[in-house]
């Protein structure tokens, strides 16, 4: 039986798709059979970030509507073994997602995979609610700013009350915080909330802190999950997060300003 993991945030543009791709690729590299499912119907971003957009023939909606089988729709990643993508449809709207349909597809995927990573759309509408509904675990992607934290808080309330686990009275969805686009410099200037601030407000476990990094943009333009850019700061931070997700303890990195060079020490004060 697969673990169903939703990557969600409430607020848009905080790094959910970047995170889904990175965590999915990381889990697959660690040997777990992993499938990434794009719930952002109408937008279709995940396949771009994964660099497989030209190989999409059938998508999630086709499978829900039984116009294609899962085998026809699943795209195998060319770089990482054990990694598959189920793309969203660009031409349909969110109503094409049905609860029964989603459940059927996730159940079928559960037989073959260890992890099902659901990349949620922004907001708390139907697509986002369905991405959350069947989850066993949630990665809450949050940027260190007030509106993002507020939306994450809202999403945590929904996870605690409006998921299959809540409805069945099962143990709650495991919730972990991934703080992304973190800039120690801007935290120091008081322009961003610190890790401690966000942890205090949301009061859930911290899976990782991903620094604001040019490497993310470069990787997504190249259609490569940033975790495969092994030398990059964001790539390493995602590697740490995957290791923690799998139960390993690792210290958090990239939280402090880099040590200033001689020039900085002389003139920066």
């Amino acid at each position, binding site marked *: 039986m697969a673990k169903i993991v939703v990557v969600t945030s409430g607020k848009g543009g905080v790094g959910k798709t970047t995170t889904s791709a990175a965590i999915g690729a990381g889990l697959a590299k660690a040997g777990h059979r992993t499938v990434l499912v794009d719930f952002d119907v109408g937008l279709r971003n995940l396949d771009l970030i994964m660099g497989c957009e030209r190989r999409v023939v059938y998508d999630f909606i086709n499978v829900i509507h039984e116009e294609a089988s899962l085998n026809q729709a699943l795209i195998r990643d060319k770089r990482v073994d054990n990694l598959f993508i189920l793309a969203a449809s660009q031409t349909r709207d969110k109503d094409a997602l049905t609860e029964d349909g989603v459940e059927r597809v996730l159940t079928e995927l559960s037989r073959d995979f260890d992890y099902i990573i659901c990349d949620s759309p922004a907001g708390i509408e139907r697509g986002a609610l369905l991405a959350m509904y069947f989850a066993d675990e949630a990665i809450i992607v949050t940027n260190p700013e007030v509106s993002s934290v507020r939306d994450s808080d809202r999403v945590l309330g929904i996870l605690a*009350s409006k998921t299959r686990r809540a*409805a069945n009275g099962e143990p709650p969805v495991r919730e972990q915080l991934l703080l992304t686009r973190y800039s120690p410099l801007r935290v120091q200037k008081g322009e961003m909330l610190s890790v401690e601030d966000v942890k205090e*407000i949301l*009061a859930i476990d911290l899976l990782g802190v991903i620094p604001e990094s040019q490497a993310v943009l470069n990787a997504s333009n190249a259609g490569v999950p940033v975790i495969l850019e092994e030398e990059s700061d964001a790539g390493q931070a995602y590697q740490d997060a995957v290791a923690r997700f799998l139960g390993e303890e690792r210290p958090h990195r990239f939280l402090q300003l880099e040590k200033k060079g001689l020039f900085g020490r002389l003139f920066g004060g």
Partner: protein
Amino acid sequence: MAGAEAVKPVLELKGRMMTLTVLRLLDPSVEVLARELDRRVQEAPEFFRFLPVILDVEAVAESDLYLDLPGLAGLLQARQFVPVGIRGGGEDWREAATAAGLAVFPAERDSGGGENRRRAATEEPAARAVATEAGMVVTQPVRSGQQIYARGGDLVVMSAVSPGAEVLADGHIHIYGSLGGRALAGVRGDTSARIFCQAFRAELVSINGTYSVSEQFEEALRGEAVQIALNGDSLDIRAL
């Protein structure tokens, strides 16, 4: 996911209580009231637009203003208030309100009546412990967008109430974490209800409908442990 697939229910009764603005009428003359309203509306037109109000007629209960209640309601509507009901007054007032399609709210003094009436904590502490149920204890954080209402008793929240969340109780509210959202105690008329919290960052607090919003709070109390009680017409917020 409830409601995603199933047929949508067409009606739902929710135990939601709202804070409503009370407009106390202190003069029995419609002309005087109209003039004063115009002046107020001019000062802050946006604030009053479509503002639901309850007319407290206690101070003019002895006058025959009730005869003109429909006219008074019309006058408010013309100024874009939304009169929802009256509070106070005798039988004449109640009949006039019903005829004018306005609700009748219990007067301040005998509000909350019947079996739901709780005694003030200070009056009879021992009896109170017996008289009320244990209340409601919430161990999870109350997140943005969530609302929790402890009907008929106290509410104890073991963790934080986030900004954008709302907690309500007929009795006291105790929050053993930060209060970042809204807390409304004594929502069904208990003027002795209090709010306690470990870190005060509320958006709004209210006791029996008398409310205060964050701009009005003393800066020195931000983040502090406070208790809030009703003192006459206003809220008394002080450090614990």
